[in-house]
């Protein structure tokens, strides 16, 4: 069993929600982003998500776009890999790497997957890699013990769900709204039926992300029956404004929201 599967299974057994915490590697510095994620782990995050900054982050809203732009001024490929390796030394939690396709394929996809797995990554979250494009990626990732995350969205067609369920590894990322990361509203009425339909094909853990930034919204999604939440923009902002302590506080608050659901 992989580290992610183990973590999610244990949380289910304990009837606790999973919290995945995102920060962008290199924002504000490589060291600062490592400190921020370590603080998130300490404060109760169950999975850490290391963002690989990219010039054209089309799924991201203004907060993560700006973090990516700041990071790119001084962050190189080797820094992202070193950040994963440094976190692997410091925390026991599974580590996911969020990257758009192009930085991953630039030096050869399989080589990059290998290097990330060696550094200690457990999963890849690739926002511009839908199920249809992911077959060869999954094969290559499997050989390295890496999971390629599958997505569902409020618009996901029912006909594709069996294939998404089958391709799922670790957890499925439910895009909680129509829009980019950090948006204000959610689209619960349209994503929840998709989550239910997915689970009828396969009982796979589903984490909701996009627009979830505080204890109240985390609690709402937990009470809707999701296995957990993914928080990005709110933590990026907390780190920028108040450093690792800000991240710690934000994660504690979200953790409390999740844990308040019986």
């Amino acid at each position, binding site marked *: 069993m992989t580290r992610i599967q183990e973590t999610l299974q244990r949380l289910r057994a304990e009837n606790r929600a999973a919290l995945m915490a995102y920060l962008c590697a290199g924002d504000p510095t490589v060291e600062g982003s490592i400190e921020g994620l370590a603080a998130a782990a300490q404060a109760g995050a169950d999975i850490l998500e290391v963002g690989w900054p990219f010039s054209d982050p089309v799924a991201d809203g203004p907060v993560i776009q700006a973090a990516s732009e700041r990071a790119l001024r001084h962050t190189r490929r080797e820094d992202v890999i070193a950040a994963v390796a440094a976190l692997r030394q410091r925390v026991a939690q599974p580590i996911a790497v969020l990257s758009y396709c192009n930085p991953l394929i630039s030096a050869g996809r399989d080589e990059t997957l290998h290097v990330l797995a060696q550094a200690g990554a457990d999963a890849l979250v690739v926002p511009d890699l839908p199920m249809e494009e992911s077959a060869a990626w999954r094969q290559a990732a499997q050989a390295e013990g890496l999971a390629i995350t599958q*997505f569902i969205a409020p618009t996901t067609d029912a006909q594709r769900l069996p294939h998404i369920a089958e391709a799922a590894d670790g957890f499925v990322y439910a895009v909680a709204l129509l829009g980019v990361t950090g948006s204000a509203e959610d689209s619960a009425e349209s994503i929840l039926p998709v989550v239910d339909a997915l689970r009828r094909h396969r009982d796979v853990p589903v984490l909701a992300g996009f627009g979830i930034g505080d204890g109240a919204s985390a609690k709402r999604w937990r009470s809707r029956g999701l296995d957990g939440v993914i928080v990005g923009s709110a933590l990026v902002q907390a780190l920028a404004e108040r450093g690792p302590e800000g991240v710690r506080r934000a994660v504690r608050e979200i953790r409390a929201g999740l844990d308040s659901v019986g």
Partner: protein
Amino acid sequence: MSGRFGAYGGQFVPETLMAALSELETAYSEAMADRAFVDAYEDLLREYVGRPTPLTHARRLTERFGGAQVYLKREDLAHTGAHKINNTLGQALLCQRMGKHRLIAETGAGQHGVAAATAAALLGLECEVFMGSVDVQRQAPNVYRMELLGTRVHAVESGSRTLKDATNAALREWVRSVRDTHYAIGSVVGPHPFPTIVRDLQSVIGREVLRQSEAAFGGLPQAAIACVGGGSNAAGLFAPLASTPVALYGVEAAGAGLHGHEHAATLTRGRPGVLHGAYSYLLQDAEGQVQEAYSISAGLDYPGVGPEHAHWHDSGRVRYLSATDEEALEALHLLAREEGIIPALESAHAIARAGEIAQSLPKEAALVVVVSGRGDKDLEAIRAREASA
């Protein structure tokens, strides 16, 4: 529809858009099989755009080059002054057919934005256009044109604040509004089925060239040439000619020269990668970060290129050349003085390479050059550059 051109193309987009792409593919296939839809589109091309555009025998330019007979395919005479309208009218009709009431588009120089605004006005659709804030400054008259046509223009402040970032912003807006909005992409780029749809809608250029060549000189031209940014006028020329023996040439923008980074010669200097939903050639650094392109022509100033061009490039069916800013400006002056036609700076890149190709061919051969648009929009930029030279 396969969605792949050799290894290139695909659908590298957020999950939220997958349903819209599949809806679009179905709607497009059904529309093309529906005589009433095709008739409505062709009527608009004839009665509103003014097609067919002429194939003009450029006699003085031919004499000047001293080789093959040069024929100009006059997309500059299409309504709104460029080939872009062929695409936006088709996509606006598709938008209506899918029951969506709102059109969004990205634009660089503003030509596609104006064409989208025009089609939206004609068909009574809402329209919003995303344009990098740098381009909003550089192309103020086109911003005003779009506003006159009832379109809202959003200045995009992220990244390099040009076409690449305007496309990111349009994609983000589409993710938000996908249920009631169609994204009318402006070139043969983006995720499947856009490269196929835009190529098909622009293929009227190549089909007219075939018919007009037969009428003008009784057969096929020896060679045909078009400029390539994203590559829509070129794809529209090449697609109907790809199965003939006609030699095909695309001309990319070499900007300040191919030695440095100040160019937009994606096929000549880039390597394959994923941007804006497709796997194709890209200008990128060693670590896969997309680089800013540069050209005097805002319409060629794009670090990607359509996936079918990547395939034609690799297979050798089309040869891709490049022309610098200086060469394009010289070509613009040449066409203005010799033929009384002021081409768009984009189109001037094709003219710039036409001389050598004409000279390599016998006098009885014919060479077709696409004049993809007219140069009015560029006059201020050209005047400013020549005043500072």
